[in-house]
């Protein structure tokens, strides 16, 4: 584990109708990388190309030391020889097999590898009662769970999840997001997670690639990329800090949980967090209010002391983005220019960032 294994290196171009995809990205060998962008940005096309479904793509894809595609050297490894696990937005289970049959499809072809805990995964995703059922009798959430475990059981070297939660209702989505979060902790296999939902990305991703109109606009680790002030307007709504910390306090009476992170403490509504659990929380830039002095008589529960690092124009002429540093953690605030001038703010100033607990309960 001393030298970092090279991850996925993708340099591809593809034409699909109106989309001209032209990407150049490098993804780490571990963790979840989110592929984020607005509709039509080419996220799915990008994923499909990496999977090997688009034979007329041009460029190269290497994963670790394996060359999956290299148009210049006329190399193209077909999909079934790339060890992938693919989950689509619509579950697409094999209609002629039972749930167990679906799960075992890739498992058998991978040689029933012993290091995969088939029973454990089935338990963890709650599939035990569904095993003998036919596919048509499952709900959307159930189908997606089967789909994920099926992909995991095929012993993949890389997981590709294409908006797996988008087609689900809110309850199923929350349920599965929880499954994925718990999976994240133990997952050895890297995953590319495509989504247009920033909250999913905030909770799951370690690394992020931002796509717009077929091009990579930014890539890097989650925190720093989402607090950049120089991103195109289309991604404006996604901007904000993702705070990762530990749940250090639970208030059963008020149903709140206290999150400790390098820059201070945050109170959020309590969902299912337990003491000591690692928690992620997204602080949207538009939810941050800046104060010269901390306030006592306010309904907002959170006030964090931080220093202004930089300011840049936001997409709307009335607004600006302020990048803050709170004890090493980056925060982003979107405020009006009027306020910036009114408070006479400038880089280097010490200010207080105020956030409602309610706004943190994504």
């Amino acid at each position, binding site marked *: 584990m001393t030298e970092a294994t090279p991850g996925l290196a993708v340099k591809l171009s593809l034409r699909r109708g109106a989309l001209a995809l032209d990407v150049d990205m490098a993804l780490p060998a571990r963790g979840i990388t989110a592929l984020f962008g607005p509709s039509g940005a080419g996220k799915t096309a990008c994923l499909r190309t990496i*999977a*090997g*479904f688009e034979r007329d793509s041009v460029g190269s894809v290497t994963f670790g030391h394996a060359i999956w595609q290299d148009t210049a050297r006329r190399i193209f490894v*077909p*999909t*079934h020889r790339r*060890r*992938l*696990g*693919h989950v*689509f937005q*619509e*579950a*697409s*289970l*094999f*209609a*002629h097999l039972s749930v167990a049959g679906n799960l075992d*499809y*890739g498992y058998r*072809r*991978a040689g029933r590898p012993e290091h995969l805990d088939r029973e454990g995964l089935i338990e963890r995703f709650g599939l035990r009662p569904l095993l003998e059922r*036919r*596919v*048509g*009798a499952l709900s959307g959430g159930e*189908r997606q769970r089967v789909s994920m475990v*099926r*992909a995991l059981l*095929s012993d993949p070297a890389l997981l*590709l999840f294409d908006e797996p939660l988008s087609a689900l209702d809110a309850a199923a989505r929350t349920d599965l997001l929880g499954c994925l979060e718990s999976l994240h902790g133990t997952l050895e296999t890297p995953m590319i997670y495509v989504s247009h939902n920033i909250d999913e990305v905030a909770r799951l991703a370690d690394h992020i690639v931002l796509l717009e109109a077929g091009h990579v606009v930014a890539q890097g680790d989650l925190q720093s990329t989402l607090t950049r002030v120089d991103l195109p307007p289309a991604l404006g709504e996604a901007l904000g800090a993702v705070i990762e910390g530990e749940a250090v306090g639970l208030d059963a009476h008020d149903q709140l949980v206290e999150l400790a992170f390098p820059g201070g403490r945050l109170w959020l509504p309590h969902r299912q967090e337990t003491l000591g659990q690692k928690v992620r929380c997204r602080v949207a830039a538009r939810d941050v209010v800046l104060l010269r002095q901390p306030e006592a008589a306010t309904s907002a529960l959170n006030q964090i002391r931080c220093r202004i690092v930089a300011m840049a124009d936001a997409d709307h002429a009335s607004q600006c983005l302020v990048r803050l540093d709170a004890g090493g953690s980056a925060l982003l605030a979107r405020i009006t220019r009027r306020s910036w001038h009114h408070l006479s703010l400038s880089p280097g100033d010490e200010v207080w960032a105020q956030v409602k607990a309610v706004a943190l309960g994504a």
Partner: protein
Amino acid sequence: MFSAQDLQALWLTLRLASVVTLLLLLLGCPLAWWLTHTSSRWRRPVAALVALPLVLPPTVLGFYLLMLWGPEGAVGRLIAAAGLSALPFTFRGLVVASMLYSLPFVVQPLHNAFEAVGERPLELASSLGAGPWDRFFTVALPLAWPGVITAAVLGFAHTVGEFGVVLMIGGNIPGQTRVLSMRIYDHVQAGEYHQANVLSLCLLVVSFAALLAMTLLRPRRYARD
């Protein structure tokens, strides 16, 4: 009620239909698969060719085959040069002619069935490690199975009812090419209406039974994803 000749004709008809259906399924699957998945510019011309027997009058087809396979015809000459016996007036020849005649009835349902399977299940199967042949047998074929049964049913029924082609190229030889439809025709021509009726009824019953048996193999539609 049935003379030995009638029974012989019945058995011959069933044999012919079974052999033709089986061969057409074996040949039709790869052809239908190709038509579904190829991006070659030959796809449309080939599809049109496959559909041709639908519009060609059977007697025309039979007549041209007779000319083509005769000693003066291009194919007939090749066959003779290869030392093989000629095709007209043989069971083999009838099988080949029937395959041409029933081709669209088998290939088109197969083609439609493979199209209905779509790309997604196959992409998934390949992401789960299944190679091309594996994907075909473990995903495409099972999902297309209702279409396969339809193709078999249509191919069988169509061959059983064949007359025009047999008339032109069969030579009405007992045990070889004297199928039931010819036998009924002969009875009619000779004014033996009673036998003609009996045989026709028999043909109807046997065909119906065969078709019913085949439809029992056809599952109801799989629940769509």
